[in-house]
């Protein structure tokens, strides 16, 4: 049965989003977690991930469309030749007939205003049993007075690049995919999270001993220390769902699985490689999985779905002997832990956290737990 994929709400103020990419053509298979679309508001670009394995069987929206939040972007099927529903919902906000809130829909004058301003009918509070021109005008007046332009506002779209460009002569260069990802991350962190930072010193020697023993036992080529620290974080995130959550609206959204993001530097690029459902892996398999994504990241061979979907993250700048490393929260996460070790030997574990979700006490407690390598008593039974 065909499954619709809807335009997500990126933030509370934007009821419209712009479709900036649809990377999977009709008829092509896509795995759960793969990126089906990217949509943008004036604050951020987010990936629309595939909810389940399937095939793209119909694209309702097109790149460049400005669509209403909640409208159907595309349809997924179990096979490439499955038919999309004939009554597929329109994605365009200009296709206004059949508002979900009213059997009669907006009045003709209201429809005209909605089209003129590129608005979705569902975005506007109605004062009676159907949307009227007065409702739209009231909404526009309130929006304009707030000084918050919408992405659907043509004059704003035209004005924005000029407003951001310096007066000094220069030339624009398109960002690479990796640079756009970094921009998306820092923009999400700036616009949505309320970041805090805490750090503790930890016993590096104890972790080195633990990692050396593990390495000898498993005949490893690469030091497993950072992977083992990340594994400790995975365990904590699994035991404490708050660490593995984010804010949606005014609710806390706890992820069902722990997808561990692990930063890997490859020349000048920084990847956040993602191990999905990491808590389901046994410790040794997790360490192998981290080594595998690290190696493939260095060779620039990570698959797209290995670069998105982190729910909690771990980073290290131990190689660079920095004394402090304050990482930026990846989108839709509330915790990233960072290891650093200065030239003088001071070893610290820091964490950037979203204060909307976590308190400093909760983060400090987690850091102290990560700071101590597990004893044999702490270790869970081996999983296959």
């Amino acid at each position, binding site marked *: 049965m065909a499954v619709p994929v809807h335009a997500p709400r990126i933030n509370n103020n934007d009821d419209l989003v712009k479709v900036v990419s649809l990377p999977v053509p009709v008829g092509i298979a896509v795995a759960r977690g793969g990126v089906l679309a990217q949509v943008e508001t004036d604050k951020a670009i987010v990936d629309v991930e595939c909810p389940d394995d399937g095939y793209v069987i119909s694209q309702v929206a097109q790149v460049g469309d400005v669509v209403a939040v909640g409208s159907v972007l595309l349809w997924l099927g179990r096979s490439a030749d499955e038919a999309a529903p004939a009554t597929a919902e329109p994605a365009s906000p200009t296709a206004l007939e059949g508002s979900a809130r009213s059997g009669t829909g907006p009045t003709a004058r209201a429809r005209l205003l909605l089209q003129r301003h590129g608005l979705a009918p569902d975005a506007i509070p109605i004062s009676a049993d159907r949307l009227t021109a007065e409702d739209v005008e009231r909404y526009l007046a309130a929006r304009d007075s707030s000084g918050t332009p919408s992405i659907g506002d043509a004059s704003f779209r035209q004005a924005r690049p000029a407003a951001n460009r310096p007066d000094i002569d220069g030339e624009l260069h398109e960002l690479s995919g990796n640079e756009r990802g970094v921009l998306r991350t820092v923009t999400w962190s700036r616009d949505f999270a309320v970041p805090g930072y805490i750090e503790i010193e930890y016993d590096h020697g104890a972790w080195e001993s633990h990692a050396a023993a593990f*390495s000898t036992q498993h*005949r*490893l*080529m*690469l*030091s497993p220390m*950072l992977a083992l620290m990340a594994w400790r974080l995975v365990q904590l995130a699994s035991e404490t769902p708050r660490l593995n959550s984010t804010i949606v609206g005014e609710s806390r959204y706890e992820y069902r699985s722990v997808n561990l993001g692990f930063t890997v*530097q490859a020349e000048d690029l920084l990847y956040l490689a993602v191990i999905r459902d990491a808590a389901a892996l046994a410790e040794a398999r997790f360490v*192998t*999985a981290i*080594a*595998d994504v*690290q*190696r493939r990241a*260095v*060779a620039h061979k990570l698959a797209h779905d290995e670069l998105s979907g982190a729910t909690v993250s771990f980073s290290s700048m131990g*190689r660079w002997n920095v004394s402090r490393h304050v990482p930026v929260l990846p989108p839709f996460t509330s915790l990233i832990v960072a290891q650093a070790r200065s030239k003088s030997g001071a070893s610290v574990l820091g964490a950037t956290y979203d204060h909307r979700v976590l308190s400093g006490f909760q983060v400090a407690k987690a850091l102290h737990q990560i700071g101590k390598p597990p004893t044999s008593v702490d270790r869970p039974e081996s999983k296959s």
Partner: protein
Amino acid sequence: MSEEQSEIEALIKQRIAEICAAMGEDASVLDADTLIPASGLIDSAGLLELLAWYEQRFGIDLAPEDITIDNLGTLRQMATFAIARRRARVTTTPTGDH
């Protein structure tokens, strides 16, 4: 030791020296049987760089289980492993002869 073995060891040592030099380390002391990860010359990030080069240079696809100190721990082991993989590839590649 075969000529092929010594040539490959020299190539790998040269690459390690380049990686180490970038981090301010001198790898000239590395001999064929020194355990590379335990040498203190090259860190994990450097080893990852070395492995990526090794795969590309010798046309080898390493599986995660290949990456052990028993297979790749020393210059000698890395060269032996590369030669073995080359030979395995030659013997399993169809030639079209009947």
